């Protein structure tokens, strides 16, 4: 019965099996590519760029989290950097009490979850617009807390965070910091990639694209939004934990509204809704300001960032990843046409 309804669209070889082959080979290829790219900084870069690469790893966790919320669920948070701040300051407080890795991570997760619940539960049972506005206020609140607790958090002057020591590794060494960050970044990436194959991940996509259809098949829309927000907040908290350990110093401007907007720029430019896009975004948000500084034009970064956000959001909805896919598809179409297959 396929003939008439399903006139075969141009230039696509049909896939006869039901589910896309997600077999061990494909997975192995991905892991291998990840490993090769991950091996580049320690082998080829000097200490300074290894340090920057370690930051890319930390920010990748943050952008992956924001991507779960914005790219997949279509909800906008203007406090993602603030949630990184929640993680970073929790780390600072817990580590200054002398606790190590396990307690730090547990505390970061718990505090991020509580903060996210307070923000998300009242707002997300309403509309996404409200979430954006309330997160805006949440960012202000965090800045206020830090400003007004100078004894505890160092206030506007910032605070030095004790390096994280895991066995022989010391996060104040760039190479060690890079290796430490690699593990959570890989786990966060694997979980985010896997999310796309779960019903939880599909619920998020449905909430983003059509809440009516989502509801019509039984999806709990508000619960899905809140779950996405919680995941994104924990990702941000863990990213803040790593950021504090890697850089050894945190201060309010690292986590203010502008920092949140830069994260947003990163996700949109990289390609909202894709894991690769989130990684590209993380590289952008760490390396591009550095390049502008090296070029002697640090003030250009926010200008370029703002312009890019507006332009990319309007004209290139799928970001760099979308551009790449489009080019690939066109190339294949040309090839197919040359081979006489339509």
């Amino acid at each position, binding site marked *: 019965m396929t003939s008439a309804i399903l006139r075969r669209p141009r230039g696509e070889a049909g896939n*006869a099996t*039901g*589910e896309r082959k997600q077999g061990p080979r494909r997975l192995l290829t991905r892991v291998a590519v990840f490993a090769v790219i991950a091996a580049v900084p320690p082998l080829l870069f000097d200490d300074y760029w290894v340090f920057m690469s370690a930051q890319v790893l930390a920010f990748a966790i943050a952008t992956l989290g924001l991507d779960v919320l914005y790219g997949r669920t279509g909800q906008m948070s203007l406090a993602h950097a603030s949630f990184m701040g929640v993680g970073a300051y929790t780390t600072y407080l817990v580590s200054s009490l002398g606790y190590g890795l396990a307690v730090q991570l547990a505390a970061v997760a718990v505090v991020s979850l509580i903060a996210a619940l307070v923000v998300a539960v009242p707002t997300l049972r309403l509309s996404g617009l409200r979430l954006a506005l309330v997160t805006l206020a949440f960012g202000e609140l965090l800045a206020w807390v830090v400003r007004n607790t100078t004894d505890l958090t160092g206030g506007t002057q910032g605070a030095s965070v004790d390096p994280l020591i895991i066995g022989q590794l010391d996060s104040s060494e760039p190479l060690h910091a890079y290796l430490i960050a690699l593990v959570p970044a890989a786990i966060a990436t694997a979980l985010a990639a896997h999310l796309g194959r*779960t*019903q939880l991940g*599909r619920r998020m996509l449905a909430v983003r694209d*059509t809440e*009516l259809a989502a509801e*019509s098949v039984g*999806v709990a829309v508000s619960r899905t939004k809140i779950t996405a927000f919680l995941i994104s907040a924990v990702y941000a908290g863990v990213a803040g934990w790593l950021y504090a350990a890697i850089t050894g110093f945190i201060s309010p401007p690292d986590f203010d509204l502008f920092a949140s907007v830069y994260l947003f720029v990163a996700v949109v430019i990289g390609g909202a809704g894709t894991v690769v896009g989130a990684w590209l975004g993380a590289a952008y948000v760490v390396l591009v300001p550095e390049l502008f500084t090296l070029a002697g034009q640090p003030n250009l970064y926010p200008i370029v960032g703002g312009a890019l956000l507006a332009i990319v959001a309007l004209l290139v909805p799928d970001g760099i990843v979308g551009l790449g896919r489009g080019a690939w598809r066109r190339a294949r179409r040309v090839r197919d046409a040359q081979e006489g297959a339509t």
Partner: protein
Amino acid sequence: MSASVETGAPPVVRIDGLTVRYGAFHALRDVTVSLPAGRISGLIGPNGAGKTTLLNAISGFTPIAEGRVHVGDRDITALGVRRRALAGVVRGFQTVRLLERESVWDNVLIGTERFAQPSALSQFFALPAQWRAHRRATAAAAEVLDLLGLRRHAHRRVDELPFASRRLVEVARVLVSSPSVILLDEPAAGLDQEGRQELAAVLTRVHDNHPSTMVVVEHDVDLVKTLCSYVIALDSGAFLCDGTPAKVFGDRQVQLAYFGRAAGVDA
């Protein structure tokens, strides 16, 4: 999540004294009708008759001013859209509503929400419960894609598909969880003659494989005659008549309301 996938015979859907108002306008006025269990019913009537409103009222998408809706013995009037869906009442939309940037596969899988779902944590961390749920969902999706002949497009993005295929994906999302009550709003709209016949064949086959109480809003008399063993006619928000296709299409009132207008002959 306690999604119950109901077993046993499909239920009768009873609508008693249903009134739906939008402001002062009565979209439906005191409609009492039953959708016979386990059959494909056609819902017909001229534009503005209240067909879509009736589907909305059964699926929970529109607030009811008066009246009750029963599925089997269960009164679902007070339930929201989601609870009704989990209870087995699932509808498709007249305007195709898909996850535009996603694959056919994901668009169909979202419809498996009614299956028992592992907790969010199990899903996120890929615990064994997630694997089992995944296998079950993918098996159901593969089956419905085969039935609808969509299998070879499973990994195409739906926004790249021709309109007719997109319509089928919308239907597939409804069918994948084998709901006991299926409400389809003009599933054949925009299809050509051949496509309509094929859709009718597919729906008949689905209905044979998984018996359900199915309602199809449709304008095409021939299609209704092919597909449906029961017909309900509405006009201007009121119940007109119901029965076998032969009886309903032979009814004078129906001919006046429906064909009179359709043929441009005013009574």
